[in-house]
């Protein structure tokens, strides 16, 4: 049985439409007018225990709204959420005991106290057995490099240090499911890598189910096996990450180092079936569909205009694919 079951989930926000001025305010008091906004529009999916799911989509696509419904913080307008046999917004406390959640910059750490004090309180609140607490603390301290942070006051930590502690706090009670809503926002590359490794390690050991939203697709590339892509409240892709890349990543990006250019290639090749992303005197970057053209074709066309010294070939990453999807270029079926 799936650990998370979501069925025909809908969330409509009511937005009050107030007219300007005091008169409008009074009018609203007696005849409140509401506009409805559909944030999540009839989505369904199942997530199995131990899955690492990347929940992605543009700003305002409905990711946070979905996560809030999964955690029970938001009541669905219609549809069903069941997490490990519990309906979260009906049995919130029971559900809270089995989950962990990170919401962007909101913290569960005590601002004025050393980090370790917050951990101790979490131990008491979640009734974490001594043994588990000790083990986890040791393990987390090692992976997230918390040794020098535990005795510092939370308010004196940097953003990245705080987030590492926050992540540790979230996993301390061995939650069955963890929701991470933009946990890497604003962090530097090393901290991001640190956190990614942590999520992967814990998942491997504890089979923790993790749902992760992020705008940094490196997070997804490195952590997640499965992608759920939501667009304007509707799921437009749900499946394995690799399948997703194969299905939509039909492009290859080739970068050539060149010399002795005899004309502006961009203008000359306007008819061709490839797209020039960047061009200058010493290099040129080309994107092409590998089902239609081969790299040999490209080399042939380019060499008419210049001398090729070197080249790199790169498959299209998630980021490029998503850019195309967001622009409406890829998914029409």
């Amino acid at each position, binding site marked *: 049985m799936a650990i998370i079951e979501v069925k025909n989930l809908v969330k409509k926000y009511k937005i009050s439409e107030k007219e300007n001025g005091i008169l409008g305010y009074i009018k609203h008091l007696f005849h409140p007018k509401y506009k409805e906004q559909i944030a999540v529009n009839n989505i369904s999916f199942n997530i199995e225990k131990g899955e690492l799911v990347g929940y992605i989509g543009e700003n305002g696509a409905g990711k946070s709204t979905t996560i809030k419904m999964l955690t029970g*913080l*938001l*009541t669905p307008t219609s549809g069903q959420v069941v997490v490990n046999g519990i309906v979260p917004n009906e049995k919130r406390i029971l559900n809270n005991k089995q989950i962990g*959640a990170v919401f962007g910059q909101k913290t*569960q750490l005590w601002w004025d106290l050393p980090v370790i*004090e917050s951990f*101790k*309180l979490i131990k*008491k*609140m979640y009734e974490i057995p001594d043994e588990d607490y000790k083990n986890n603390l040791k393990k987390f301290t090692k992976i997230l490099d918390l040794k020098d942070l535990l005795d510092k006051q939370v308010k004196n930590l940097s953003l990245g240090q705080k987030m590492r502690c926050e992540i540790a706090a979230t996993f301390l009670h061995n939650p069955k499911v963890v929701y991470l809503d933009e946990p890497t926002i604003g962090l530097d590359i090393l901290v991001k890598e640190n956190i990614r490794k942590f999520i992967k390690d814990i998942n491997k050991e504890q089979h923790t189910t993790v749902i992760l939203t992020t705008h940094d697709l490196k997070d997804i590339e490195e952590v997640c096996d499965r992608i759920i892509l939501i667009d304007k409240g509707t799921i437009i892709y749900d499946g394995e990450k690799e399948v997703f890349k194969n299905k939509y990543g039909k492009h290859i990006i080739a970068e050539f180092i060149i010399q002795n250019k005899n004309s502006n290639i961009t203008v000359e090749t306007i008819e061709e079936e490839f797209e020039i992303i960047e061009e200058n005197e010493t290099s040129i970057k080309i994107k092409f569909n590998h089902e239609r053209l081969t790299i040999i074709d490209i080399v042939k066309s380019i060499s008419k205009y210049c001398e090729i010294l070197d080249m790199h070939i790169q498959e299209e990453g998630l980021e490029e694919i998503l850019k195309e999807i967001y622009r409406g270029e890829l998914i029409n079926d």
Partner: protein
Amino acid sequence: MINKILAIAKQNAKEGLYYRFDLLLYIFNFIIEITVYVFIWLAIYNKGNQILGMTFEQVTTYYILVVSLNPIISWGINETMGNAIREGEILRELLNPISYFNYYFGIRIGELIESIIVGIITFIICALLFGVLLPSSLLNFIFFIIVISLSVVVVYFFELIIGTSAFYTNSIWGVEVFKRAILSIFSGMIAPISLFPEFLQKIANTLPFKDCIYTPISIYFGELNNIEIIQVILKQFIWILILYIIAKILFNKAVKSVTVNGG
């Protein structure tokens, strides 16, 4: 559950005691306040007289007790709760593995620990400076403690009701002032309730706030007999129940509006 509440209390008290200097300032303030009262009454009494059946020592003791009990009763969770609601921390708090009421009760007890420390230090210093009357008997002193403890529970639910208003107004400053006004008038903080006009006395007798300051002090002085004291305690339990129910209904309604509207 008690364990968890105490753990939260300890945590909150630790955080509060981190601002030890603030607490010192409070104590200093309270001592000044008492000194002013004492000198005003000293002028009024002009030595030896009795006013409204109270001796100068009684009045002094009354004010020292009032000021020392004040933080215990009136330092509440309103500010913490209001800020948390305004800044959206409420979502975080609703994710705790214990109920909101229990969580905040822990916070309240934490405040209580701080205020007891402040109260006791203030009391001792002022007792040494101005002299106080001791409790009329050990039993009365125990009742004094019991009634105050129950009052903390009463005001806790009152604070929850006030704090819930932060869901609807952007600032809880107005309701906070309202709360303080109600508390200080009807608890006997401003003046002994026996000095009130009759209709105000009636209101004060019905509301539970009198039992926060005025009644325990009367018990301290031995002015209530055991039956009267038991009646007070019963009244407190009834008020706890009433305020709990009101707080629960209002809070659930507010949380529902958050979880429907998305904060």
